C-alpha cells in the first residue's frame, strides 16, 4: 500500500486542541503518521476568520486524499462553522468544476448518553459528500462525550476501551483504503459508562460545581428573558 497519501484532520469544535473532537481525530492521525501518511490538522473556527485563511483551507482540502472531520453535535446537527465550511467547499467545487477524488470520514460526539442523537449530523455529512462528489467512507458516533471532555484517551483507562478499538479499526481501514467497518461503528456507539442514570447524575453534579465556582449556583434555573 502506498504511504504517500495525505490526510487532513478538520476539527469542528470551537474548543480546538482541548476538545474531544481533537482527541478522537488525533488518535487516528497518530496511527497514520506511523505508516508515513502526510498529515495536517486545521481548526475550522480559526480557519474561517479571514479570507486568506478560508482560501488556505480550500487549497489544502483540494490537495488531500482523505478528510477526517471531527466535531461536536450542536442543536442536533453540525456546528454552524462546519456548515459554513461545507458551503465554501461546495461553492469552490462548483466554480472549478473539477472531479473530486477526496474521501470523507466524520466523527461526531455529543453530550447526551445516546450516540443515536448524532445520526442526522452524520446523514448531513453523507449528503455533503454525495453532492460534492466526494467518497463517503463512513461516520462514527459517540455519546457521553462529556465523560471524555478533551482528556487524553490514555488517561481514561477502561472507560474508553471501545473507543480505542473503534479508532484502531478505522485507522486500519484507512491504511487498507477500505470503508469504515460496521464493527468500528458499533464500538464507538457503545456507552462509556454502564448506565444513563450514572452519566446524567455525574453531569448534573459537574454543572453545579462549575456554577458554584463561578458564583452562579443560585441562578442556575434563572429565566432572564421573561
Amino acid at each position, binding site marked *: 500500500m502506498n504511504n504517500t497519501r495525505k490526510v487532513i484532520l478538520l476539527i469542528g*469544535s*470551537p*474548543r480546538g486542541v482541548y*476538545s474531544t473532537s481533537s482527541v478522537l481525530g488525533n488518535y487516528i492521525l497518530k496511527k497514520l503518521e506511523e505508516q508515513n501518511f502526510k498529515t495536517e490538522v486545521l481548526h475550522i*473556527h480559526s480557519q474561517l476568520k479571514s479570507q486568506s485563511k478560508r482560501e488556505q483551507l480550500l487549497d489544502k482540502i483540494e490537495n488531500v486524499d482523505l478528510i477526517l472531520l471531527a466535531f*461536536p453535535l*450542536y*442543536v*442536533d*446537527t*453540525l*456546528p*454552524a*462553522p462546519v*456548515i*459554513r465550511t*461545507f*458551503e465554501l467547499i461546495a461553492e469552490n467545487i462548483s466554480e472549478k468544476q473539477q472531479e473530486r477524488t477526496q474521501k470523507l470520514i466524520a466523527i461526531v460526539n455529543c453530550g*447526551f*448518553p*445516546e450516540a*443515536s*442523537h448524532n445520526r*442526522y449530523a452524520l*446523514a*448531513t*455529512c453523507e*449528503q*455533503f459528500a454525495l*453532492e460534492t462528489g466526494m467518497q463517503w467512507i463512513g461516520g462514527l458516533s459517540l455519546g457521553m462525550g462529556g465523560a471524555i471532555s478533551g482528556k487524553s484517551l490514555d488517561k481514561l483507562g477502561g472507560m474508553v476501551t471501545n473507543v480505542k478499538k473503534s479508532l484502531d479499526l478505522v485507522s486500519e481501514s484507512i491504511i487498507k483504503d477500505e470503508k469504515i467497518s460496521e464493527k468500528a461503528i458499533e464500538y464507538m456507539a457503545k456507552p462509556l459508562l454502564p448506565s*444513563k442514570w450514572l452519566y*446524567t447524575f455525574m*453531569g*448534573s453534579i459537574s*454543572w453545579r460545581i*462549575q*456554577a458554584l465556582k*463561578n458564583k*452562579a449556583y443560585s*441562578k*442556575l*434555573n*434563572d*429565566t*432572564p*428573558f*421573561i
Partner: protein
Amino acid sequence: MKALILNGEKDNKASLNKYSKIIIKELENRDYEVNTVILYEEKIADCIGCFGCWIKKPGICVIDDYAHKIATMFINSDLIIYLTPVVFGGYSYQLKKALDRMIPLISPFFIKVDGEIHHKPRYKEYPSILGIGVMSEFEKEQVELFNDLIKRNSINLHSPNYASEVFVKNKDIDHIQQGINNLLNRVSDKNE
C-alpha cells in the same frame, strides 16, 4: 400571538424573499404580530462552546451581540419560522449560527423524553417550530433529513408543536401560498 421569522438567506441575492413575503402575509391574516430577522444582516458570532450560558450567566450567552435580542424574541414568541435554503439536508450557516446561540434558553440538566435523554426546559413555555426549506431540485433524502431535523429540534427545544415542508424553487406563488397555509393550519391546530 407573536411569530418570529428567522430568515437564513445565505447572502443578499434575496432568493427567499418571496417566501418571506407570503409567510408574513399569511401570519398577519391570522392576527400574528410578526418579527423578521434577516440573519446575514446581523452581527451574530459563532457559539464558542464555553457553556458560560449555563454556568457563568445562566440563561444568557456571554457573547454580547444580536443573538441576545433573537433569544429574547424567540422565547417570547408563540411560533418560530426557520426559513432556509436546504443545505445538504440541513440549515444554512446563517440560520444555524443563530440556532447554536439559543442554547441559553434550555437548562444544562437532563430529562427523559420518550426514553431518550434531552436537556430540561428552562422556561415554562416554548414556541412551536415551523421549518420551511427551499431547494433548487427535489432530493428525497435531503427533504426527509430536513423534516427529521425540524422534528429533533422541536423535541430538544420543548416545542408544543412543529411542522415542516421543503419547497422546490420556481414553483408558482399560488402553490407556495397554499403550502404555507397548510403548514400554518397544521401548527395552529395543535396549538389551540
